[in-house]
């Protein structure tokens, strides 16, 4: 078999998927690159629509990462005609060696000999009373509104959560003239500062983070370490928040809230491939397992790249995209340019170290999930409060997430538990007094995102 004729499928056109596509294209392969978005870049390098009037430059859009973004876009333009790129296409089902893709109201089956999953990540959410009110968004949403549409989620925005992305988004809002009313961080300043010092070994990241922080300070944005979100206030829409520190509460007036407790991998498609998952105690998530080059455990034809295989950030995603393509071509005996994985493996090692430092910097209080009140809505799709999950915990086999879902409806709605699954697992494990890994994870089911009956029924000729 002429291996370069192998049907190679890449899902996701963010930094990982694009670098994989580049490497394959350079070797003479013609991979199919399927992406749900209309333009490449993923969430991190999300581009405004191709419409007159969107005039911001890469520097304005992506700040310190502008050069990387530009390089990705240029790379894509170079390989565009050598790959089968399918934007605005949703892979909603995967079985054996084929995926089902929805676009323009029709479904199409796409078979593959090898698959690279580069499905990315999204915000991790911890519910608080009122978090389902209109006007509460994820930190990612706050950033995308600005990057993609030139809009902010409100006039007076409070940022709540942890992680560098939140500080970056708050900083971007401030620069856009919408200075946040507060940045609320549940982590203690002491651990933040201590871990921050470890970051001195990474001057680029350190100075970037410091710059965001100082800029917010300079603009008078209160940064409240050691504060938890007690409640989002409002009847029909957000009117403010209350935050709590050591039992003392204070109210902050705002018209929008951005919440995000770091990022979590998007793993539904990986689940449908049947590859093995392993519990990552550091990230506190079940993740698809792979070797250092991205070869998935349990299937010879599946490769993992980017944040979908564990959050490591955009630079590491590019490295992992190349590594996965390299592993794939090595396995299929496709000759390709001399590529030494060393540099990319170093990038990953560095990103791994950075993530570890960030986790130490943004530690969550031990009782963070235990403190979610029973009345707090946990599953926003099905409007199930946390108390309902606690009430069935342990009953008739509900020591495991899928049972708990069956009894409580948690994770049974449109998003399939993307928003509540992690918090639900934490709350269930806490209630049962067991380790997080022992309650398992919600199984992915097709369609991994909603797709209309008509789209399922109609097949492309």
């Amino acid at each position, binding site marked *: 078999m002429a291996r370069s004729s192998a049907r190679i499928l890449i899902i996701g056109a963010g930094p990982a998927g694009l670098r994989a596509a580049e490497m394959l294209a350079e070797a003479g392969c013609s991979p199919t690159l399927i992406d749900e978005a209309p333009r490449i870049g993923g969430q991190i390098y999300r581009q405004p629509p191709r419409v007159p009037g969107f005039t911001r430059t890469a520097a304005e859009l992506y700040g310190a990462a502008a050069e990387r973004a530009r390089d990705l876009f240029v790379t894509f333009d170079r390989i565009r005609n050598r790959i089968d790129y399918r934007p605005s296409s949703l892979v909603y089902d995967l*079985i054996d060696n084929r995926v089902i893709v929805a676009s323009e109201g029709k479904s199409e089956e796409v078979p593959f000999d090898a698959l690279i999953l580069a499905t990315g990540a999204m915000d991790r959410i911890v519910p608080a009373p009122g978090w389902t009110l209109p006007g509460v968004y994820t930190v990612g949403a706050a950033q995308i509104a600005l990057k993609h549409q030139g809009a902010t989620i409100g006039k007076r925005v409070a940022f709540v959560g942890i992680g560098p992305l939140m500080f970056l988004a708050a900083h971007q809002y401030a620069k856009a003239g919408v200075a946040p009313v507060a940045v609320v961080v549940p982590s203690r300043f002491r651990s933040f500062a201590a871990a921050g010092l470890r970051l001195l070994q990474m001057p680029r990241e350190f100075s970037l983070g410091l710059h965001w922080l100082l800029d917010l300070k300079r603009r008078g944005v209160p940064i409240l370490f050691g504060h938890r979100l007690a409640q989002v206030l409002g009847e029909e829409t957000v009117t403010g928040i209350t935050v709590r520190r050591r039992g003392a509460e204070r109210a902050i007036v705002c018209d929008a809230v951005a919440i995000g407790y770091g990022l979590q991998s998007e793993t539904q498609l990986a689940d449908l491939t049947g590859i093995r998952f392993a519990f990552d105690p550091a990230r506190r998530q079940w993740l698809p397992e792979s070797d250092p080059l991205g070869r998935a455990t349990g299937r010879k034809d599946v490769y993992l790249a980017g944040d979908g295989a564990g959050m490591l950030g955009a630079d590491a995603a590019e490295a992992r995209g190349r590594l996965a393509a390299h592993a794939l071509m090595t396995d299929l005996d496709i000759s390709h340019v001399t590529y030494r994985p060393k540099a990319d493996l170093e990038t990953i090692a560095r990103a791994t170290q950075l993530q570890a430092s960030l986790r130490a910097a943004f530690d969550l209080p031990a009782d963070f999930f235990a403190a979610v009140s029973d009345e707090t809505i946990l599953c926003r799709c099905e409007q199930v409060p946390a108390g309902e999950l606690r009430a069935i915990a342990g009953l008739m086999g509900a020591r495991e997430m899928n049972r708990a879902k069956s009894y409580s409806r948690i994770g049974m709605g449109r998003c399939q538990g993307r928003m509540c699954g992690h918090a639900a697992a934490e709350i269930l494990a806490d209630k049962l007094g067991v380790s997080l890994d022992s309650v398992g994870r919600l199984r992915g089911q097709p369609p991994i995102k909603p797709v209309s009956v008509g789209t399922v029924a109609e097949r492309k000729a």
Partner: protein
Amino acid sequence: MSARMSLKSDVLVIGGGIAGCATALQLARRGWKVTLLERDQAGVRASGVNFGGVRQNGRDLRELPIAMRARAMWDELPSLIGFDGEFRATGNLRLVSDEDRAVQLDNFFTAATKQGLGLVWLERAELRARYPWLSGKPLRGVLCPNDGHANPRLVGPAFAFAAQESGATIIEHAEITEGWYANATFQLRALDNRTFAAPVLVNCAGAWAGKIAGWFDEPVTLVPEIPQVQVTEPLPYRIEPVLGFVGGDFYLRQTLRGNILFGSGQGRATADALRSQPLPESMKRGAQIAIDFIPDLAHVPIIRTWTGVDGDTSDGVCVVGPSETHPGLFHAFGFNGHGFLLGPAVGAVVTELILDGGTSTDISGLAIDRFRPRRKASAAPARAQHPDEETEASAEENGAQSTDHCPVGVDQHKQAADSQDAAERDQDR
């Protein structure tokens, strides 16, 4: 028997689905010491994962008496399991879209009406008037207003919970790999070598029950059935009756929450039938038929799918009754994907068979002997304590052979599929 101590009970029940749990519940309530053995978790397979139709409409006439008894019990669910299981008598509407099938509908209407089942005959115009969301495709339908639907993911586990509350012992994760009969006692051994013994054994093992019957010299070939159901986002509640199509392998209902559930075709299972997964082809087929009959559904998003595993008999009718070979052995399995309604009545009937030596419900058409081609056994129900001509020795032999039994698998699937008249089968749940 074993070096380890056997757990002793009055009755052993294999299988923690509704049938097994309802049996354990009834026996426990009458003061019997019952141990129920479940290979996985109680109420999570076909009983907890099924379409949720509570349907007498369109039943094989042999199942109708027990179905009608069961239906009455659904009204009493709170006294059985402590809540109504979200059961609502919204009706079951069976439709035909071609004249050939119409004969089947007609025959059922006549025969079932005679047996006292309340049915309403609806011609196309009446269908359109009553159910404006329906397309013009259905020619006519039969409505059983007394039928309805319930929530299986709650009802299945609730029966297990109720049985436990009534004093039955439920042992989960006990996969029984061997069974034999000795000294008027049924002996079972689990995968982890635990043993269990009792003078009475009830086989409610669902897709695996045919194999267990085989240990006692009356094997029944069961074909695994893997119904696949698509679930839409919740919509305003508009589709009251549960829909089924005569012979057409399509069914649809709207839950109280508003989700529309529909299915056509099957998913697939691993060779041991333990895990199943949906197939894109079945999703597509279901979607096409759904739009064909309810055009507005084209716009509605599907948000998830699921599959379950059940066991089908070759004639599409379940087995409920005493063993023909062993005194004290009772079977209740082969529900062909429509055992959800029957569960409560199966528990009551099997309990009567065990404790009273007979039941007022006509189960003559459900006897296991119909799957025994060469031997015509008498259908006289045996009391539990009755000695039988089958001896210990032969039973032990069966026990010894049991490890060679292959699980319900693809080959058997094929054999049985060949032997059945697909056109006659009614897959509606």
